[in-house]
């Protein structure tokens, strides 16, 4: 697999060097480190700070969502690896405005251990920390084990809601509560057509047969939950929507937000074809799409595939979704 690379072992450092130069309008290094970045126009006294983070390889997740009205700081790990506690603590300190800090990140063993260690250290430093783990990946665990699920592209919506709640000056407890609600109302299912590959190995991370696809794919190239024969775009979308409808309790006339996300190599053309069917399925249930995002929002290196996320709105979530924000990869005004 060919890539634009210099030293494969320096890929994260070089990328972050580019990121910091490109997005200096939105974010800046904390204490000179590129592994902990703070929003230029984010933290302020009296506001709950929002810290997000995770491994790299998901760009524009997570660093593309740092800025006014969204996350205040991001901790950056190696490829597909949680950041260690140190940069997370630095983020907590930089994000803190005296009203506590909210950690929001995907539910992976590594992230949980590192963020928990960081939370303990931050608490020792007198910063109150609350945590919401994102668990939107419907396919990763049965509904009885909702909290055991992974966090995937739904992060996008959950971060957005959390950032808006913080920016509106809600208390730490209120920010946590609405973020938790957003997570519980966010449903994602992903499908991979081809594996991605690590810059260090430049080989496929796993294999998918020429006529197969992987359903329930996570965002780290981890194999999904089932391998199936590839089907038409509408059939794939139908099976994703069927899974989501099985859990999402919507009534006619209700509203949702939709994210059709490329895992990397899948182009917009195909995402629109998926969106078309998502819209048809929702319309058939008289559910209105209040807002949609279609593109590269939470990727997995250069994997071919896509995920569909539905955020089941209520009035509060809808308000917060439309709250203005200004980051490198999401602008709402």
């Amino acid at each position: 697999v060919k890539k634009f690379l210099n030293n494969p072992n320096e890929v994260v450092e070089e990328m972050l060097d580019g990121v910091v130069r490109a997005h200096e309008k939105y974010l800046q290094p904390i204490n000179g480190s590129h592994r902990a970045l703070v929003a230029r126009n984010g933290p302020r006294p009296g506001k709950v700070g929002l810290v997000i983070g995770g491994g790299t390889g998901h760009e524009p997740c997570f660093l593309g969502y740092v800025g006014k009205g969204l996350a205040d700081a991001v901790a950056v790990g190696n490829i597909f690896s949680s950041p260690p506690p140190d940069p997370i603590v630095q983020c907590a300190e930089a994000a803190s405005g005296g009203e506590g800090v909210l950690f929001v990140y995907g539910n992976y063993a590594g992230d949980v251990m590192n963020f928990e260690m960081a939370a303990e250290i931050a608490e020792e430093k007198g910063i109150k920390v609350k945590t919401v783990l994102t668990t939107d990946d419907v396919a990763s665990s049965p509904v009885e084990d909702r909290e055991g699920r992974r966090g995937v592209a739904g992060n996008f919506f959950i971060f957005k809601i959390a950032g808006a709640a913080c920016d509106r000056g809600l208390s730490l407890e209120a920010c946590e509560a609405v973020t938790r609600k957003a997570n519980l109302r966010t449903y994602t299912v992903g499908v991979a057509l081809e594996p991605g590959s690590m810059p260090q190995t430049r080989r496929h991370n796993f294999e998918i047969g020429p006529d197969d696809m992987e359903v329930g794919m996570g965002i780290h190239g981890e194999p999904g939950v089932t391998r199936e024969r590839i089907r038409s775009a509408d059939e794939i979308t139908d099976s994703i929507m069927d899974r989501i409808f099985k859990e999402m309790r919507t009534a006619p006339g209700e509203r949702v937000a939709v994210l059709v996300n490329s895992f990397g190599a899948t182009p917009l053309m195909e995402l629109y074809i998926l969106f078309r069917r998502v819209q048809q399925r929702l319309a058939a249930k008289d559910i209105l799409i209040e807002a949609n995002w279609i593109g590269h929002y939470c990727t997995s290196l250069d994997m071919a595939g896509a995920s569909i996320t539905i955020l089941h709105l209520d009035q509060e979530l809808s308000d917060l979704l439309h709250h203005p924000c200004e980051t490198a990869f999401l602008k709402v005004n």
Partner: protein
Amino acid sequence: MPESAVRRLIEMFEAISSVIEAERDHLSELDGAIGDADHGITMAIGFSAVTGELARTDAGSAGLSGVLTAAASSFLNAVGASTGPLYATAFRRAAQALKERDTLDLEACSLLIQAVASGIGERGKGQRGDKTMLDVWLPAADAAAQAVAAGKSAAAFWSDVTAAAENGASATRSMVATKGRAARVGERSLGHMDPGAASAVLIIRAMAQTLRDG
């Protein structure tokens, strides 16, 4: 000879680092089958950071415990991931266990292995049969304790420990993962060796090789 024990411990980390580097792609491949294909990369980054840090450590003043503490924090900061907190906690527990010691006799080696096992267990809240690195470290720790209790020779001690580790790693093939990323693959993890177990065996072999002649 406290300083030579410290040097030996540093050599141990160098041996670990070089075998992990050599097996990097193999470990990532194992992870690719049931996880996210980064385990070899992560471990290589971690132990290279450890040896880099230890190269700057003054063997005279650090002490065994100081070396292990430095290893813990450099590994953690370079790595994060699952393995960062797991091995960092392991090395910190080992630093506590060897605080009063300045030689690496078999008793110290046994305490070291046991501390690593219990540190990983504590941080990861796991147990035997979860299909993780614990399936190597726990049996290795048991074998070490028994070998010391039975008064075995260094050669026998290390061959017991290594055999227990290898058996433990092999056994992960027939387990269904319940911890870490591989847990999401469920029964499809059957037949695949756990990458963290595989790297644990490499670590233990490197330990045996460098610490065997006490």
